[in-house]
Each structure stands twice: as C-alpha cells, then as structure tokens.
C-alpha cells in the first residue's frame, strides 16, 4: 500500500483539525450555553424555588404543605435569607473544558463540571440543624421542628410563622422531586450535546 508522504501528512495534521476544531468549539459552546440556561430556568421556575425565593409571605404554591403556611416559614428561615441563592450560584458556575481529540472518528471531547446532588445538599443547610439539607428534605421529607420551635419561642425568625394557627406536622409534608431529579435530567442532556 502506498504511503502518504510525510510532508502531506503534516500539512493535513496542521490544517484539517484546526478547521474542524473551530467549528466544534463554537457548536459545542452554543449547545452548552443553551442547555445551561434551560437548567437554570427550570430551577428558578420550579414551584419550590419560587415559593422559597418569595420569602415568608409566599403562598404554598409547591403544594408540599397542603396549602398551609409556606416553605420559607416551615423550614424556619430568617426574614431576609435567600436560601436558593447558593444553588443558583453553583448552577451558574457550571463550565466545560476541552479534554482532547475524540478517541474515535473526527471531533473533540469536552468535560462538563456538573455539580452532583450531594454537592448541592452540602451547601443548603437547614437553619436549625446545619448537617441536614433543606433541599434534600424537599425530596425526602422535612419535619416541622423549625416551624414549631419558631412558634413556641414567640420570636419567629421568619416573621410570620407564628401567625399560622393550623398545626403543621412533619407527617403532613408532601415530598417533591427537586434537585436530584433536576441534576439527573440535565446530566443526560449535557451528555447528549
């Protein structure tokens, strides 16, 4: 079989990948930014995020408390807290980097640093027990400790928790898919780029 002359091979190596690389980078960046925006939009418009972000006067739009009180007061946040901000910050910080040529075929490989659900749980502590995550609690259940203690202390940290007369209990909390489902979904989407 005839061999490709070395100078031709070098020229091909120089020219073709550079051209292809530029296109891949551009194409990947566009898809990445679009997917990242979708992820952030889905997080910020999630009923749980909206309810908590709305502060102590929100309605229970997430349905997690069967319409009684709201998540901000129930979890026991302090008036002025912005509990969803750390999650938004970590989602905004999702980046990618080029990790080399494709192992098969023509193209490039990229590594995307998507946070795991556990990483998000680690930055969302319960206001009354810092080792526990309120974001995980949305998925697995939250007891009404924060609410009841605020109520009993008569100096509500949330400002309005003590005004709710109906008794809210941990057993009444309706678990809702939240961070884990979101990360799982967008892990797939990012991989599909």
């Amino acid at each position, binding site marked *: 079989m005839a061999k490709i002359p070395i100078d031709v091979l070098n020229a091909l190596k120089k020219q073709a990948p550079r051209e292809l690389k530029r296109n891949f980078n551009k194409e990947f960046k566009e898809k990445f930014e679009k997917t990242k925006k979708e992820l952030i939009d889905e997080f910020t418009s999630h009923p749980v995020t909206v309810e908590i972000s709305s502060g102590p006067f929100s309605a229970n739009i997430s349905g997690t408390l069967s319409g009684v009180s709201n998540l901000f007061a129930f979890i*026991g946040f302090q008036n002025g807290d912005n509990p969803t901000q750390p999650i938004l910050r970590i989602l905004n910080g999702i980046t990618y980097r080029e990790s080399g040529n494709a192992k098969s075929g023509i193209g490039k490989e990229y590594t995307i640093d998507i946070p795991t659900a556990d990483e998000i749980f680690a930055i969302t502590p319960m206001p*009354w*027990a810092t080792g526990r995550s309120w974001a995980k609690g949305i998925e*697995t259940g939250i007891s*009404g400790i*924060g609410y*009841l*203690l605020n109520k*009993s202390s008569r100096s509500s940290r949330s400002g309005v928790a003590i005004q709710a007369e109906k008794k809210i209990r*941990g057993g009444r909390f309706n678990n809702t898919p939240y961070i884990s489902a979101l990360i799982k979904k967008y892990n797939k989407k990012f991989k599909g780029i």
Partner: protein
Amino acid sequence: MIEQYHHKVTNSFMLWFDHYLLTKGQAYTNISGAKCYNYDDERLDDRFEAFGSPYKQWVNDSSVDGATIANGIYIGNTPSGEYSGGSRGGLKLDFHNGRALIETNDQNLDISCDFAVKDFNIYFTNETEDDLIVENKYSVNSRTPSAIESYIEPYDYVLPAVFIAAATSKNEDFAFGGMEETTINISATVLAEDSYQLDGVLSIFSDAKNECIPLVTMADHPYDEFNDLKSGVYNYNDLSSGNPNKLFLNRTTTSKLTDKIRKSLSNDMFVGFIDFEVQQHRFRHQ
C-alpha cells in the same frame, strides 16, 4: 400477616444499632443491688406483681464485654429466678421496662437486682421528629443518684434515648436477571442530657459507614411478650455470625440541633440526628 422484608430490616437494624452503640461506645453502666419498687400495672394479668427499678432499659446482650446481664433477682439476700430448664420459675425479667414481674400476691417483697443499664435507650417509633422534640415529656435515667429513688413508669419513654424510624424506601433496577437495589432511609433522633453524650453517639454512627448489618428475622428477636429473653440468653454475635444475608450501610449523615434553637425547647435536651441510607441488592420477585 406474614413477615415482610421491611419487618426484617427494622428488626435487624434495631438489634444492630443497640449492639453497635453498646460495644463501640461501652454505653452502659453496671448497677448492683438496685432496689425494685412495687406498683400497679393494669396491663399485666393478675398473677403478676410488678417491681420496678429506677432504671430502664437493661442491657440484654451477652456479647457486650463487661456488661452485667440480669439473670434473676434477690429476694432479701436470696438469689432467685435464675433461668433454668426453659424458665425462671415464677419470674419474668422485663428488660425493656427495667423491672421484675413476680407471680405472687405479696406486694411487700424486698426485691433487688444486678444489671447493666443502657446509657441510651433505644426505641422504634412512628412519631414525627417535632413530636419527639417539641411536644413529648420524658423521664430521665439519671446517672446522678437521687435522694428519693423510685421506679420509672412502665412504657414511658426515658431519656437519654435514640428514636429510630424507617422513613422512606425505594427499589431501582440494578442488574440483568431482575436484581434490584433496595434503598431504605432510616432516621435516628438522639435526645441526650449533655453535649458529651450527644457527640459520642453522633461520632460512633458517623463512623459506621460501610458497615454490614446481618438480616435477622422477627422469629429470632430475643424478647418474648414480657420483654424477657426467650431462651434465657441473647448474644448478638452468635445470632448474626455466619449470616450471609446482609444490609449495607451506604451512608450516614449526622447533625445537631443548633444551640440557638435548642435553648427554646421547654426541656433542656441536646438533640442530634443521624440519617442512615441502608441498601441491599436482591431479587424481589423471587
């Protein structure tokens, strides 16, 4: 209803938790010559008189090195009720409620007993954490001798204690052939008298990650209906050794109620939480 998988899991977890805390933390105190006081218990049938000690729950596990496992009582200075030939004669030891149940009509017997009392009572509960922490009232297994000593009401929760509840579970496909991964979340609420106790329990179980828990059927539970030992002796190591069917402790997370919140509690307790993720790979449909 016949025994289901969750029955086995909770039974196994409770026995393991108790054994692990008692052995790793040596979380017991030996008491000798504790006087037992007579009281009425409507739930008992007429043949029994209840004589309660000021402490409950008593350690029942012979595999706990150094712990005095109660085996009979003293009537005056005379030992009585040692387990022999399948029974203790007219005596039942209620390890759970820390008392002796004696078949007699004499309420004035001078009863005392040697035993080890757990530093933390272990309870399985369906109560919510808010009920446990905010609303319930408790007696205390105090380590400080009191001038007026008496029995502790039976069936009441006594502190320090750990309340265990199985919260959620799920099955997910794991491997070809129908193998599934069963994940069960179990939470433990720790109510302690002081920060030292609380930190001790949280430390022990924080380090319990990756432990294996032998699956024990309800039939192998050591207690009979009076909370006495079915065969006079219970040894967790013997019960669990050679059992290939095990649960895996995939994750443990510990946390404490913040001091600011804790100080708003009506009773001065130190509160901690342990969240366990227990897994087993199994063929659910076989």
